[in-house]
């Protein structure tokens, strides 16, 4: 039996490895949780242990709810466990309390996903699934998708105004384009507030791609959109915004 682990504590992992070796269970470090996520080779991963909370960007992060959701949707055959110094609540069968190890770790890790309830342990760490939900839903304001839709709609109406109705740039700027900087700033600021922290997640590659798309829109379009008449009509801009939408949707679908 081999257990793959994600942890920020190398010394804890070493002690854990020695303990599991007593029962002929091998341990492999899948990812050092102190660093941004880099997709590993999942081929041989059957059992994954996330040590929680883990230290990332100077904060103790609890990401087990996101991990559980993501694995269920992308790697359903992998059995997910957590481990740490938190007590195990009743009904949380997949958490290993390091202070209260079961007699047989082999029996513990032999549990299948169907044996395990969907409830995860509550560690008092930074609840990353709440943060991710807030990123998408806003604080009771517009969702990120609403903001993107507003931006796309304004550009679409500007294009229609120019190409179908022959409106002048001045009219198009007044009716549509001058609303864009504030909307774009809202999206960009929200993104910048959350991006770095979210890169500890298994969707980090998608997030990096999204970051590159947002940077392209910001640098190549939004700065001059109210001044340069040709920018808003470029098909690339709408394509970029659609790609941003698709990537964010993918993150939401797999993590929440």
């Amino acid at each position: 039996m081999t257990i793959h682990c994600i942890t920020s504590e190398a010394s804890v992992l070493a002690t854990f490895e020695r303990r599991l070796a007593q029962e002929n269970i091998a341990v492999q470090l899948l990812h050092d949780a102190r660093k941004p996520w880099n997709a590993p080779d999942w081929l041989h991963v059957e059992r994954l242990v996330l040590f929680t909370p883990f230290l990332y960007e100077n904060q103790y992060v609890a990401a087990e709810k996101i991990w559980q959701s993501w694995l269920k949707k992308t790697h359903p055959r992998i059995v997910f466990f957590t481990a740490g110094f938190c007590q195990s609540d009743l009904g949380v069968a997949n958490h290993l309390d390091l202070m209260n190890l079961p007699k047989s770790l082999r029996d513990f890790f032999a549990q299948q996903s169907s044996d395990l309830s969907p409830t995860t342990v509550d560690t008092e760490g930074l609840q990353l699934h709440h943060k991710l939900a807030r990123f998408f839903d806003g604080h009771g304001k517009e969702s990120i998708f609403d903001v993107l839709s507003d931006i796309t709609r304004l550009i679409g109406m500007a294009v229609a105004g120019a190409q179908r109705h022959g409106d002048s740039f001045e009219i198009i700027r007044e009716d549509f384009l001058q609303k864009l900087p504030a909307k774009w700033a809202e999206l960009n600021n929200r993104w910048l507030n959350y991006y770095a922290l979210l890169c500890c997640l298994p969707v980090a590659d998608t997030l990096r791609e999204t970051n590159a798309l947002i940077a392209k829109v910001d640098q190549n379009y939004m700065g001059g959109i109210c001044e340069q008449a040709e920018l808003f009509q470029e098909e690339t801009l709408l394509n970029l915004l659609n790609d941003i939408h698709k990537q964010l949707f993918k993150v939401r679908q797999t993590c929440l």
Partner: protein
Amino acid sequence: MQKLANHPKYILIIWSWWKRTAPAFLASGYEVWAVEGKPSDRLVLIDERADYAAIIAQLLADETQTDALVFLHRRSHNPVEDLKSVTDALRSADAGALRKAFAFSDGRDYLYLSANEWGLIGNEGQLWYSSGGTKMRSAEAAANTVRRTHFDKVWQYYSQQCKRKLLELKEELLAALWVLPVAQSTEAVDNQTWLRAFKKEKPLLYARLLDLANEDSPKFNMLLEQAEQKSQEKLRFGECRLNFSELNPADARAQYQHLADFIRDGIVNLEAPVLVSDSLRMLRDRFDDLLHALPESTYP
């Protein structure tokens, strides 16, 4: 994890507001400022020369459900002693109200605009800070209104500070203790023997553990002080101990006492054979009981 109810929030800052000349500070000894976009929240500026405990008591008399953070400008080398003068006035009869007190000084704390762009206070007696021609404001003086983001960020930082420090010490300490061979052993050992080795290997962690329990040790106090000066990070629990023991709801106060008692009597001063794994499990349990009893989140 418990959740805090949505109460009105008051930040009360006791400082040298009297130094402000335009306009002059009110003779009453305090000024109440509104918070942008939050009609029930308040920033209260209190003159440090006034009877600030009486002012706090008066302002909060009918506000038992209001959450309140008090900031007192440090007057001595013992900020915890300074803050004891406000705890009675600050404490609420309502267990659901969040009440905390902190000391500040020297322009380094999160409260200051000079230390953090989202701070509240700046040059002496002002809600702005200027440096090199740039002026940073936390409020609109003409409207007696403090900017919402500044209020919210300061609120969030300080309301969570103590719980965050507690969780971080718990995780760092237990990780360091659990990996000790003696913690993995099923044999009893003399408590002071294993503890002596731990003190030598991780003196700073041990010093923080003593500090949490307010266990006096000049040697380890000095170590903490030196480490704080070097890292510019507040490692000591200081006001957090006061908040845990005097201002939190009764169950959280009791849990802090259980934790502090166990640190002193079950770890630091115990002279007996122990099964170290049992000691660590009990220490962990006490940490968790206190963490769960504190209603605020640990992080934003």
